[in-house]
């Protein structure tokens, strides 16, 4: 693989890592504030994480 492809793929993964990390972090904070809402928060977190991962995979397939 050429260098631009590798750099592009690396940037995509950095973006996804930051994004999903943010989601996980705010989900944890919200659960800490209100433990009764854990189920709903977990559902929303998984949905948002799957959407971002979808973008990441699409970008990876487009890059390679």
């Amino acid at each position, binding site marked *: 693989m050429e260098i631009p492809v590798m750099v592009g793929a690396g940037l995509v993964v950095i973006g996804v890592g930051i994004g999903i990390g943010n989601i996980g972090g705010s989900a944890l904070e919200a659960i800490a504030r209100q433990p009764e809402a854990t189920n709903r928060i977990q559902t929303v977190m998984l949905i948002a994480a799957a959407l971002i991962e*979808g973008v990441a995979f699409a970008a990876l397939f487009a890059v390679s």
Partner: protein
Amino acid sequence: MRSRIIYSLVLFALIFNPFVGTSQHSELAEDSLTFQEEIKLDIRHHLEDGHDYHLFTDESTGSHYGFPLPVILVDEGVHFFMSSAFHHGEEVAESKGKFYLVYHNKVYRTDAEGTLSFDADHHPTNVKPLDLSITKNVFHIIAIGLLMLVLFGRAARNYKNDLVPRGVAKFVEPIVLFVRDDIARPNIGEKSYRKYMGFLLTVFFFIWIVNLLGLTPLGVNINNSVAVTFALALITFLITNLSGTKTYWLHILDPLGKSMPWYGKLGIYPLLVPIEILGIFIKPFALMIRLYANITAGHIVMMSLLGLIFIFKSWIGSPLSFGLAFFIGILELLVAALQAYIFTMLSALYFGSAAAEPHHDH
């Protein structure tokens, strides 16, 4: 009792298939590849669709175990023959005077010697007939469809006698209620969620079962091909747009409605409306790409890690890569269920916007 017989007959037919046979071909041409390249070829062969069902190869005798599948080609008349005529891609099959050759899982029309003319990109330029054959993917889809029909038919018949379920119904009832109460009702609304429940349930269970079976050594990789996920997303697209109410189209073509005067709309709609119209196509497209990419990436990672076991061949490397592959497998279990849930939930979301009722401020 009758359904039990049908169920076992279906399973029996799937496992002990009359097409089972062995063929005595050794692939000597591939001895010249290094071990790593062989593994890569094996992985790619495992993850691709094929015209015959290749279970495994006995290395010592060189005989392949599996069974051939029917090949149906439409090329000035319908040609129907078994893929054993192709002999794993080595021989030219002849049918009604025309010759066909399989190259990289695609069928091309050639002459009697099997010449393929390649262009600059090393792609064959021969004519491809319309290929409607029962490949591995089609066979799996039919088998899983039959399995789901039998299972859920039994579950549905269970409810005729009494409201407390027994058997299969006892197992699927919480999941069906989950799809109804957490996916369909919140997103579509109370009035019209029942119309869409059939499709939502089907697609949820289908994607979940297919993903789970993809983790087994059977080589079921239906969602690995863009064609199948495209078909699923196409059905979502068709249902959304064919059952769209007037409010749905109004939301797309006139998003701001009464809240903006006409001169404001003139300024902003040339930007907003094309994006909304593109969104009609991009949303199912993203569904297709998301499912395809997640499952394909998962399969490739898992197969590569399993191949790593054989590359290391040491006392430390192989157990470590086995452990890694094991954990990735557990993650894949989660991804299997999650992708089914995401596809169903996003479909329900799109159906909800399609079945929108006019609110009072518009």
